């Protein structure tokens, strides 16, 4: 793959910390675009605010770095205004699951043709390490100095329930699988959600007894469990585990396609 085709090489190296997993996930997305053979002119990458949301700046497409939590709303406008565009949203567990949770579930419900990739580092990186709605219970963070008492979301369950056409979770450790989920997601019409477990050694790792990026990858490896295996386990056994795999794969009609039909019928069927 040619770097220049998809990256703004002059902007690299990226601002992410040494060993941050976000670089790996960004590459995974680019590989997905490459595999789809999409014309980069027709690709739009939208993000919110966060370390993860800085990714579009490095990616050589139409890129939009919006406000915290709302990239899916902007993306909805873009996709509906021009359904020809391939619209990818890059978001974080803060951006996408905390402040942006509502837009996420509504986009799932509408099943609008947007591909969301959520970089889940289980912490607010950009703001220096507060807990997020996906921080595991008991974890240390700057705003949970005595250990986090909030149960985290399983956002794959949630997006599936909300109606997304495709839902999967991978990890940076299991990178080739992550690549394949993203590729499948991009291949779907309709809304897709891929969650990539990424590592934030700087703010999550250091406070949670994983000083190096490697320890964090090790943790991903040890705690991941395939969704098929997970089905045989109860919620107690699954506590703290990362369930990976494909959660939903449907072919419900995409929203902008429906809208186009509506226009046709209102206009009296003229093409």
């Amino acid at each position: 793959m040619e770097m220049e085709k998809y990256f703004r090489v002059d902007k690299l190296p990226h601002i992410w910390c040494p060993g941050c997993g976000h670089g790996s996930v960004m590459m995974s997305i680019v590989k997905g675009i490459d595999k789809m053979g999409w014309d980069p002119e027709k690709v739009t990458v939208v993000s919110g605010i966060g370390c993860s949301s800085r990714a579009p700046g490095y990616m050589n497409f139409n890129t939009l770095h919006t406000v915290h939590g709302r990239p899916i709303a902007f993306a909805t406008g873009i996709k509906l205004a021009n359904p020809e565009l391939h619209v990818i949203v890059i978001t974080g567990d803060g951006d996408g699951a905390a402040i942006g949770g509502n837009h996420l579930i509504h986009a799932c419900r509408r099943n609008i043709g947007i591909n969301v990739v959520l970089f889940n580092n289980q912490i607010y990186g950009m703001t220096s390490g507060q807990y997020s709605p996906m921080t595991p219970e008991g974890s240390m963070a700057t705003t949970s100095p005595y250990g986090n008492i909030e149960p985290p979301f399983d956002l794959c369950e949630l997006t599936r329930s909300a109606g997304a056409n495709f839902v999967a979770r991978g990890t940076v450790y299991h990178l080739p699988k992550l690549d394949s989920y993203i590729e499948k997601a991009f291949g779907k019409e309709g809304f897709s959600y891929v969650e990539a477990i990424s590592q934030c050694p700087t703010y999550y790792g250091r406070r949670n007894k994983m000083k190096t990026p490697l320890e964090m990858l090790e943790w991903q490896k040890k705690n991941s469990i395939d969704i098929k295996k997970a089905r045989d386990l109860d919620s107690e056994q699954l506590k703290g585990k990362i369930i990976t795999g494909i959660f939903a794969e449907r072919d419900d009609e995409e929203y902008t396609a429906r809208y186009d039909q509506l226009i046709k019928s209102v206009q009296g069927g003229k093409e």
Partner: protein
Amino acid sequence: MTERVKLMQGNEACVEGALDAGVLFYAGYPITPSSEIAEEFAAKLPKVGGKFIQMEDEIASMGAVVGASLAGKKAVTATSGPGFSLKQEIIGFANMIEAPCVIMNVQRAGPSTGLPTSPAQGDVMQARWGTHGDHPALVLCPNSVTDAYLLSFQAVNWAERFRTPVILLLDETIGHLRERVILPRKDEMVITNRKQPHGAPGSFQPYDITDEDLIPPLPPYGGGYRFHTTGLYHDETGFPSNRPEVTSRLLNRLHEKIDKYKETLFLYETYGLRQANQLIISYGASARSAKAAWRIAREKGLLVGLLILKTIWPFPEEIVAQAGHDKNNIVVAEMNRGQLIGEVERVMDKRIPIRGAQRADGVLITPEQILAKLEGVN
């Protein structure tokens, strides 16, 4: 031409004006007393191949509108007080990234839920200062249904021309009023489209100002020019920078691109200014009562002038100063506890008495209230 004489509601006229200006996208969330705008767009946009979407809230609506604008469509949203408050963050973003879009706010009585079906002009200062940080604002206030049509059309044009969010600030009275309108023929209306880049895509810098007008071109996504956009301070390439010379250059230009054209942006009506020693200043629905008060005062033989503002932000300082400097009483009529009067006070000399004819109880201000503030009324 008679086809353009109609009975129309203010909210409907906003939609007609926007459609005639080329709007093809609407995203919104219903709220009284603006909902008819959404409903009209929902019915009419598909007919012209445009898109209407009801989003999950006002924030999402504002986001979708900016997104659609970047994708190349002229885009509008409409709301009222509580929703206007929610949209503020992304209005600031639109300002910063220079996304053309129109926000219609049909004012009702606030604060908070207030009186959802009652008229007010309580969001006048918010329309100027509602989002955080320094930013310019372009805000238009119609005082009739015809005005609603014309200013809606103008708002879309200016949004495109200046690459900026434009706020159309109605009030419940004008939004819900039905009246006889006489609209210009469509072929008399001049539509403005956003400027497009000319050079090679490779060398395109989205915030590079090659033209004197200080406004960078804006190609649509998918149109052959790839670029990056961020709400962070950014340089001409569109990428973030915190160098003071870059940040001040950007912020200055955002203001100057509008200040430079101020003179052409000031829309207003005047009545009997020359032969007057007193002046009434008003805008929006209050201007209707002000007009009545002015008429009655004139009938009584008082030398009163009337200045009706349609552009309220940027505030037409010179026009107000000019109209008021030789008067010995200025009455500012508005439906709030005194908002735009502060600007009048700011620009006028202290020796001229300035009085507010104000009302903020959910009832349209009356001509009598305004008359009472004039001198020599019995």
